[in-house]
């Protein structure tokens, strides 16, 4: 089982791709830890997570089919 990840903005410079998969884990805290292990440069980056296009600020249980987005600070306008 795997989980789909979208990355945006400066995060794509670190992940190398705007779409990839990671092995399924129980919650977003575990996912962040796994991402930082895979991409050490993420440790210095400021970013938030969205689960199915909705921002999550606390640790959140992951379900099959969830799409996770890695969002660096916004700079529109």
């Amino acid at each position, binding site marked *: 089982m795997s989980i789909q990840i979208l990355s945006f903005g*400066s995060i794509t410079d670190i992940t190398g791709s705007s779409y990839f998969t990671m092995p399924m884990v129980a919650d977003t805290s575990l996912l962040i830890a796994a991402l930082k292990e895979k991409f050490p440069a993420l440790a210095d980056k400021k970013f938030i997570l969205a689960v199915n296009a*909705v921002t999550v600020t606390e640790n959140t249980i992951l379900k099959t089919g969830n799409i996770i*987005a890695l969002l*660096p*600070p*916004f*700079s*529109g*306008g």
Partner: protein
Amino acid sequence: MMTDKKPKNIFTQGAIAATFIADSIQKHSSNKSIGAHSIFLGQVRADVLNDKLVTAIEYTAFTEMVLPIMHTIREAIFAKYNLTCMHIYHSLGKVNSGEICLFVFTSSAHRAMAIDACEEVVERIKKELPIWGKELFENEAYQWKENK
């Protein structure tokens, strides 16, 4: 009060043309209850960053997330201000320096509502919408934009 129930697209490919803005203004002449329009335009600056000149900004967005958030902002603004209408356009892709990348347009019977709503929408767009600008320099190099 006009407000839509389904999220409207706000994105336009590339720069926003001055003629498009003129058409948008002209269309409002048929709404004779309008007394005031407030317009905000964002223009790409040719900033010099570490001795390199910004020639363009390339915008990308998490569209599926932007549109519902923009819808929520729109509903909140219509609930708070007595507006006749509101239109929002944001560029995606490359916008050269000197070109327009954001167009916010609010209209109301009296000026205070249009002016205050326009300012609030601009602040919320910059703060809440998952959109990113990549500042492109003369030589292939780039830097990710950061909003003040």
